[in-house]
């Protein structure tokens, strides 16, 4: 679904990414992990078409990425909800902007599944951080994306809420698998969710190693089988 070949990117003098090659399958969940500043967000922006690479090429569903497209959704670190829109209207925003027609039934369904039934008419400031991020997740699903790009979505949340939301994301992916690129600096989240984990080394960002996570699903945080992979990743990150 996503083909990244020989992609490098510099901001002026800052060499952020160097020679990235990566394939993401149609139903594959790929986590990208690495220290802050190693170019994870830049990689997502490139795939999203928000930036164009200084070198190399990115294909999504076989066509080169030149600008953002409707079948690719982006979920950000912060919920990025519009404070004047109700929860429901926030979820419907992509449908409006992309001209997808009336998606209200689908929005209600998504909110119900995310445990937000009954909150449709609330404004974002009336919700907790975790609930806001759930709304943001529903919003990124309303357009039925083929590709989901997720940038450290839970890093601003407390540990308990993080766990809940990671499990929520696992449920979403099991219910309807998509191509997902999930940026995180949490090893546990990566191991819980990913089919493959890409470890980036910093300055400039290069692929240090790719780790397959061949464990049955659903997985649960704290499960002993995950520990071995976590340990391996911790070692890799230390040498990255």
């Amino acid at each position, binding site marked *: 679904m996503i083909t990244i070949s020989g992609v490098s990117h510099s901001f002026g003098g800052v060499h952020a990414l160097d020679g990235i090659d990566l394939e993401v399958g149609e139903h594959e969940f790929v986590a990208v992990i690495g220290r802050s500043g190693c170019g994870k967000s830049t990689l997502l922006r490139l795939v*999203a*078409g*928000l930036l164009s690479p200084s070198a190399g090429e990115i294909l999504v569903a076989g066509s080169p990425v030149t*600008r*953002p*497209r*409707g079948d*690719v*959704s*982006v979920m*950000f670190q*912060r919920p*990025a909800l*519009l*404070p*004047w829109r109700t929860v429901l209207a926030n979820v419907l*925003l*992509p449908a*409006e*902007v*992309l001209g997808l027609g009336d998606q209200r039934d689908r929005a209600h369904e998504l909110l119900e599944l995310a445990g937000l039934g009954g909150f449709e008419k609330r*404004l*974002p*400031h009336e919700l907790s951080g975790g609930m806001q991020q759930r709304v943001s997740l529903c919003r990124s699903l309303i357009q039925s994306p083929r590709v989901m790009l997720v940038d450290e979505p839970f890093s601003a949340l407390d540990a308990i809420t993080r766990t809940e939301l990671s499990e929520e994301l696992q449920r979403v992916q099991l219910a309807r698998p998509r191509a997902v690129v999930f940026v995180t600096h949490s090893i546990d989240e990566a191991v819980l969710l990913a089919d493959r984990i890409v470890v980036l080394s910093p300055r400039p960002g290069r692929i240090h190693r790719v780790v397959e996570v061949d464990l049955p699903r659903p997985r649960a945080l704290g499960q002993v089988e995950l520990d071995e992979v976590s340990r391996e990743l911790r070692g890799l990150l230390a040498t990255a």
Partner: protein
Amino acid sequence: MRAALPVLGLLAIIGLWWLATIVFGIEPLLVPSPADVVVSFLELPGYLLEQTLITLWEAVSGFALSIVIGVPLALLIVGSSVLERMFYPLLVALNAVPKVAIAPIVVVWFGFGISSKVLMVVLVCIFPIVISTASGMKSTPGELVELFRSLDATRTHEFFKLRLWHALPQIFVGLKVSITLAVIGAVIGEFVGADAGLGYVITVSGGSADTSLAFAAMALLAVISVALFYLLTWAERKLVPWSEEHRVL
């Protein structure tokens, strides 16, 4: 209780004023007592209310016109850096010119009637509206702009579904500044050349040394300003329920 406090403050000031006129034996010609002012009003209530409505109409229509012109102007300024560079300095210059100095020319051009007053109101109101709208739109958080970019949103979507909404709380700050200026603008226009309105009443009463009538007119001006201001505050609460602004106030 909270609603009663401003009234209490007002009564205290009126009481002190009254006391001062008695204790210091101030000539009613210089400073009339509150009673004199009320008497003045009661002598000509119909006339004074009519003048009040004229000034009110000038202020409100000028204010409305400022919104109708100012908001699109801000959209243009934010939308195009070329237009911004062309017209922003001009706007600042226009605002820097003392409006009192422009007023006589405006009256010469537009006559003694209402249109010269409305134009004066627009001249004082438009700047805060343009500035607050433009700066509100420009201060849209990067993450929200990026969200719209990621949806491949058009400029129209970005402006009307994002930036303008984000600017609304700040627009209201500008509107609240403007609405008090609006009354001042109308009165300046009336001072310079008019045959009606509260500013005209004040000029005339000055000529005939009827200080308490001038005070009555000023009191009516204050009433209009305060009423318009709180009307806007009320509208803001209704229209911008997500704003932090009135949670602080």
